[in-house]
């Protein structure tokens, strides 16, 4: 999946560059449907999908002990609109729903592996019973509040109870009657940074596409004391080795975190029982640990899975395919009930900043009815300070295309994406003004980046440190942009120019047609391929007035970046003849950034991108030769990045019918 994502990032840029790399002849045709880009502003009555990024953040926040920071759901890809995927109204058709459903069944069990979610209900002694009232209800309410972003309504609670009861009752009737026992193995007990963990695997050969539940018991080693139930776990973790040996599919591994009270230096025997006919003790069970001595088998509780597990996982899975989860009704004025308006306001605010449900403080304020306009503004500031990295990833990461490379397998590209995130983050934290994004005079590097860039003041490890520099850190100088707009062996000034037009100036080029391609082909033949890049670009630009009409915009944005090579390294020998942009002549990223500062183009564009993210306004608004964005602020913004974000989000949330 990471490979796919990074390919997307690179591919999009190459394509247009390829199209335009010679010239765009023919009075460029304003496609009849693109004559005015402004008409594509979104309708504010649209119902927007939960984006895949948001889906992932919500599960991380709900069960942080299960879903790691770089957890990726492999859920269906949503197209982005106006560069962002958080305001996409695409309908959920049957294929998508089917995917969400199968994912929901899998994820509900993972959620139930979270101690944060289970609230000790995974450790309650089975004999006293884990009932709807004592265990399921509080979990359903807590999970429901996170997934629906508001307290569950009483009608919803009743509905879930009915489903839970029916399934809990049914499950005992479908317990396996097959003579074949679950195949299992208790690998042992090991210590890790998370604590002392019991590991193994179990599967039902008659029903391998389901996951077996295990219960764990301990008693002091060698004693005759009764075994004490210490918790349960579903065997649903990847164990390719087991699948290979037994030629089975699915995920059948388990890891069980032993409660701390049983990690006290005493030697214990731990018994792992699989739940099903025959109450089998897992092979190689029990294991003994002190911690650390061990020996160890898994046994059966008489049911395939407990009714509790089946019932609760079913309820959680149904929430995961509910429109209350998969659509963001809180973005609409009447999305929640009138009496839930405080929660609507809280959730809308929370989504825009931390791409997830409200945190505890925000929920409490909503519950107390204290989200006045002043409080919304205060909370926006607080959330932005607490979750600036989340905001930087989802807003700046999509705007500047680095979000998908933050977990890239190539350490250099990953580090460059992180550099872009940290620079933006610093602008929020310090409330630096928007123009500073072009020339911050600082950046963040780890040892890999410092060596790559040739910045000597490097940290000696993988952590990032802020350094002062006037050649790095600005949007035009960031390694991520410079490298992802280049080919594998050389730069592509056209690709870079188009990227800057879109991301920094909010301008687009008109689409190319078959006829223009044919003309491009003709022009291509007249250019000497051995000439310098600068010279080739000049020849393209001046081949005809129509060529000039696009390249006079592209080239001043792309050529100055030639001072960096295809991996973003500074080329000290680079020099070029200044090229005109508006009333300025530019020859490197420094004077291009200064010119963009003076024309206000960048600060106007920043506001537009921010509005696109927050309220769905058009993020481009104009083609290079037509202006139709009557709403833009002609002076650009002179605000700090933090103020600008807070103001924009506050305006959106407070005006949304609350």
């Amino acid at each position, binding site marked *: *999946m990471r*490979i*796919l994502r990074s*390919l997307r990032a*690179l*591919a999009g840029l*190459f*394509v*247009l560059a*390829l199209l335009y790399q010679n010239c765009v002849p023919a009075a460029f*045709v304003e*496609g009849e*449907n693109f004559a005015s880009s402004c008409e*594509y502003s*979104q*309708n504010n*009555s*649209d119902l927007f999908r939960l984006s895949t990024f948001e889906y992932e953040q919500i599960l991380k926040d709900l069960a942080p002990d299960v879903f790691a920071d770089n957890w990726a759901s492999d859920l269906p890809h949503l*197209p*982005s*609109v106006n560069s962002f995927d958080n305001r996409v*109204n*695409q309908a*959920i*058709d*049957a*294929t998508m*729903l*089917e*995917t969400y*459903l199968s994912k929901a069944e899998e994820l509900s069990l993972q959620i139930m592996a979270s101690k944060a979610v289970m609230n000790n209900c995974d450790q309650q002694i089975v004999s006293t019973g884990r009932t709807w009232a004592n265990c399921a209800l509080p979990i359903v309410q807590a999970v429901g509040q996170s997934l629906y972003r508001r307290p569950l309504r009483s*009608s919803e609670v009743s509905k879930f109870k009915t489903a839970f009861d029916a*399934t809990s009752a049914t499950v005992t009737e*479908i317990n*396996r009657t*097959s003579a074949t026992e679950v195949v299992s193995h208790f690998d042992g007990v090991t210590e890790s940074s998370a604590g002392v963990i019991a590991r193994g695997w179990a599967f*039902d050969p*008659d029903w*391998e596409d*389901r996951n077996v539940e295990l219960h764990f018991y301990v008693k002091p080693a060698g004693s005759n004391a009764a075994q004490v139930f210490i918790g349960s776990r579903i065997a649903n973790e990847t164990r390719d080795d087991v699948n290979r040996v037994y030629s089975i*599919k699915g995920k059948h591994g388990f890891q069980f975190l032993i409660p701390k009270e049983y990690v006290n230096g005493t030697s214990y025997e731990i018994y792992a029982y699989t739940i099903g006919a025959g109450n089998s003790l897992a092979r190689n069970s029990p294991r003994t640990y002190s911690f650390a001595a061990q020996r160890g088998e898994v046994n059966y509780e008489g049911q395939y899975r407990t009714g509790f597990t089946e019932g609760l996982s079913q309820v959680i899975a*149904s929430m995961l*395919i*509910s*429109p209350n989860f998969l*659509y963001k*009704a809180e973005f609409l004025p*009447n*999305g929640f009930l009138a009496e839930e308006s405080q929660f609507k306001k809280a959730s809308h605010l929370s989504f825009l900043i931390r791409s997830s449900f409200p945190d505890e403080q925000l929920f409490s304020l909503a519950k107390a009815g204290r989200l006045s306009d002043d409080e919304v503004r205060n909370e926006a500031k607080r959330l932005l300070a607490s979750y600036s990295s989340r905001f930087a990833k989802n807003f700046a990461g999509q705007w500047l295309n680095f979000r998908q490379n933050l977990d890239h397998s190539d350490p250099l590209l990953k580090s460059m994406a992180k550099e872009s995130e940290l620079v933006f983050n610093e602008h929020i934290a310090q409330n630096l003004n928007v123009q500073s994004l072009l020339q911050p005079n600082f950046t963040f590097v780890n040892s890999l980046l410092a060596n790559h860039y040739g910045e000597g003041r490097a940290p000696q490890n993988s952590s990032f440190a802020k350094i002062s520099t006037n050649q790095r850190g600005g949007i035009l100088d960031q390694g991520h942009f410079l490298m992802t707009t280049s080919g594998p062996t050389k730069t592509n000034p056209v690709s870079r120019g188009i990227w800057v037009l879109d991301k920094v100036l*909010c301008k*687009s*080029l008109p689409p190319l*047609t*078959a006829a223009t*391609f*044919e003309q491009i*082909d003709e022009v291509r033949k007249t250019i000497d391929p051995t000439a310098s890049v600068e010279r080739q670009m000049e020849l393209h630009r001046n081949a005809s007035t129509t060529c000039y009409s696009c390249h006079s915009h592209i080239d001043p944005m792309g050529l100055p970046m030639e001072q960096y090579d295809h991996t973003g390294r500074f080329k000290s020998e680079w020099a070029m003849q200044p090229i005109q942009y508006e009333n300025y002549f530019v020859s490197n990223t420094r004077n291009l950034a200064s010119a963009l500062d003076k024309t206000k183009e960048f600060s106007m564009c920043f506001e537009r991108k921010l509005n696109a993210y927050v309220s769905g306004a058009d*993020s*481009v608004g104009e*083609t290079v030769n037509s202006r139709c964005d009557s709403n833009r602020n002609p002076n650009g913004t002179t605000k700090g990045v933090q103020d600008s974000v807070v103001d924009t989000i506050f305006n959106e949330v407070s005006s949304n019918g609350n």
Partner: protein
Amino acid sequence: MGIKRREFIKLFGANLLTPYMLASAPWFSKAYAATAGRRKNFIAAYFPNGAYMPTDANGYAVDGSWHWNNSNGVLHEFVSKGLKNNVMILRKLRNGFSNRDPHWQNVAGFLSGKLITLDPANPRAGETIDQRIARSKNTYLKSLVIGHPYFYDHQEASHKAYSNLYTNRISYDIEGKPITPITDPSQLYNRLFATSTGGANAVNYLRSRKKSMLDVSLSDLNSLRSNLGGTGKQQLEVFTDSLRKVEVQLDADKKMCTHQQVDISQNFSDMQQSFLNRNNLLNQIVSLAFQCGLTNVASIMYAPSVSAGLHYTPLIGVGTGHHQAAHHGYKPDYVKRIDDINKIYTKVYIDLIENLKATSVLSDTLVLVGSDMADGNVHTTRNLPILLAGQGSDLKFGQEIIPSAEVPITNLHLKILQIMGDSSLTSMGEGQTLSTGILNNIQS
């Protein structure tokens, strides 16, 4: 059922259905009964970026490498594999709309000849022929809409208003709404065949559990709909419809059809490495679905339009991605690259034909293979690379069909509809892609 499905498959292994088994599945024999003189199954198979078909002075693409005459032709393997008589080449077909980039407009219009309605709130194009044919069928699944996991995401601003959706879809329903393709072979397989291995009680239990979840979702949806009072109407209607469709699929008894064993456990996470294996598996599953009469229609997008990030390195060595190779600029290494890529696709079509043969459904099936553009270098849409495949003397397989003049591709679509038993349409498409007649010389 006394015998578990796995054992059942092992027992019969790679054998086809026996008469006894057919008789034991009445719905099967009904669905499978051949209709005389009319092809029952239809497949539309799409490949991106055209082929090396250089343009002449009039902007018309010549045949270039899209031929089977000798080993230089990207279709030559049909001949060397002895499959020439299962394929016909169609020439002089055109697609295209002024001022619309083929990479998204003509992909969306490839099977309909219709313009996209550029409305982000309601993306749509025209109903495609695969879906029109599917509407007339009464099968367990209306159709199989299949895609590739690589979602080509165009980042740049000039491609707004859901162009990304269009470049990744070829099927549109009767209302012109895009249909999300299935990209995971195991999901496709499970939709058609899979049941749990846990026996009848377990199957019933899992089904009722899923239905209960769908019921909860529907109940939530109804309350949300009443809160919103009309807002988001379209999305909620589609959601309701999806809940219903998924539930119907749960109710269908998939266990009745026994078929060749299929290995769906392969790892396809590296899309470069697995390109051929993945598409071959999809071909196999589609063929089995036809054999079992579970559906009569499939549309397969072997890769999305543009596919800039697909470079096929494990198959043809290191080189440029598909899109860059398609913009060959007549450079010999790029021309070779795009030819090599098209030869990979030829292997995929051959695999499809062989699978349809192996399941004895090729003579009942009509396969349309094609791209939305002729030569990717200049995005020309005149003289598209189009094939029809099948078996039987009713159609002129083994030939090149060369109309006397250029014709809109919708002429072919009308002919396909007629072959599939639908003669009710006299015209389809619009603008330059409006039909002007029917390609009669396809039939004997």
